[in-house]
């Protein structure tokens, strides 16, 4: 079965074509490259720009897969959560396509999509397992009881983990987005140079705002010269602390719920320091850890199509009157 996935919930305009929910035939995220070949506009902000970019992106996803519109058998689209204006572009486009091609429409939750990035990468693994979604907008620890059934254990109370990376990047005067820049700079620093506090938020919730403020206070005490010298150490120490927060809570949850398997996804799951640390702890503590392929960590439509395929198999087809839901969760 050939399924088209569409994702426009935040910054990225993305489309992908999958065969049987497993095989990625194409995976397109709007970029400068597509701009020159297919038109559209360079997006600045999760916005109406999606309108101008959705057709070039879908066209390229079909071209890359060597297919045409008439080959499509279903359309999966992100329907929640996200910015209403952004979600609406993808959803309205998917509805029109579903109506004109007379093929089923499947509504997908963006967060469940991130979980499916792991199912897509590791088709062999089976729930129950723990899930950790870490991105610019989300930091959620959950139990994946089965495909389609999730229980939230904890979430960030203030800044998302990826957001903290970006904001600390900003404090260190690195370029945007800060996450990959901090990762690069951290390679040159000592992760044990500065003991930033790990904090103590109850249960399985997270807080990254305090860590960001600790970095700020630390920087304020330094002269410009010291700042330059310490930058790499700050990046490495901050990164280590943020990773420790995520790993500690994950292990605590795995022990309490006696589920010694965890699937990490979202943009921050591309961070090598996080990956290495999880693999190291997994060996020591005796659990299994899974990460998606790096190209489907950040927002993409392949994960949406993979998730949509499972919904389709369960008969979960959306009506053409389905609405975009900015805040709906899967828990």
């Amino acid at each position, binding site marked *: 079965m050939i399924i088209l996935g569409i994702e426009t919930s935040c910054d990225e305009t993305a489309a992908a074509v999958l065969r049987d929910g497993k095989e990625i035939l194409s995976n397109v995220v709007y970029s400068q490259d597509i701009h020159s070949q297919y038109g559209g506009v360079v997006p600045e902000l999760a916005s109406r720009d999606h309108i101008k970019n959705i057709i070039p992106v879908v066209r390229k996803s079909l071209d890359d897969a060597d297919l045409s519109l008439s080959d499509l058998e279903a359309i999966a689209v992100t329907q929640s959560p996200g910015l209403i204006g952004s979600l609406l572009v993808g959803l309205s486009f998917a509805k029109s396509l579903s109506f004109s091609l007379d093929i089923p429409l499947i509504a997908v939750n963006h967060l469940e999509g991130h979980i499916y990035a792991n199912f897509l990468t590791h088709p062999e693994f089976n729930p129950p397992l723990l899930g950790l979604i870490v991105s610019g907008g989300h930091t959620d620890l959950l139990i994946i009881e089965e495909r389609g059934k999730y229980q939230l254990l904890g979430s960030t109370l203030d800044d998302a983990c990826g957001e903290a990376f970006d904001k600390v990047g900003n404090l260190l005067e690195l370029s945007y987005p800060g996450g990959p820049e901090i990762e690069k700079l951290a390679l040159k620093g000592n992760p044990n140079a500065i003991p930033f506090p790990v904090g103590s938020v109850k249960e399985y919730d997270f807080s990254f*705002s305090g860590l960001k403020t600790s970095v700020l206070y630390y920087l304020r005490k330094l002269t410009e010269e010291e700042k330059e010298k310490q930058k790499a150490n700050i990046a490495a120490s901050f990164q280590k602390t943020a990773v420790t927060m995520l790993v500690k809570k994950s292990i605590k949850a795995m022990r309490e719920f006696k589920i010694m398997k965890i699937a990490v996804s979202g943009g921050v799951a591309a961070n090598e320091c996080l990956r290495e640390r999880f693999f190291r702890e997994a060996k020591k503590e005796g659990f299994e850890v899974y990460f998606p392929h790096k190209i489907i960590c950040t927002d993409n439509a392949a994960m949406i199509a993979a998730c949509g395929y499972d919904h389709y198999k369960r008969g979960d087809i959306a009506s053409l009157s389905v609405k975009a839901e900015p805040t709906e969760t899967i828990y």
Partner: protein
Amino acid sequence: MKKKFHSKSAKETIELGEEFAGVLKQGDIVAFYGELGSGKTTLIKGICKGFGIEKGVKSPSFVFLRIYKSRYTLYHFDFYRLKRKEELVNAGFDEFFFNSGIVLLEWADKLGNLLPESRFEVVMEIRSENEREIQISHTERREWSMEG
């Protein structure tokens, strides 16, 4: 009228926000100014608490907008990632400013002349670790009072 408040902890900032909530009415717009870590989101947590919203109030820096429902609808914007003010119009965000609800704008300085004229202004400054100075004013002759 301009009022200055001092907060010695995140807890005190939240309490100030709760009190400020009592001043706010349907249709109000509040612009927040202050550097990273100055406590804008913390103060907004307090405002939401004042409206009975205790859960799910967090930074919208990446998602731009979070919407909370109580007796009013609270639109919590964050323009941290805005590069040019025109993006605001392009994204259709300005439409929310004329909605029936209360609009809270973090990084309001990024909006320039697109900011609605009648608004509360909240300027937050870091005085030392944990200590913040919070200055609240209204751009028009609006009667309001707070003890702090």
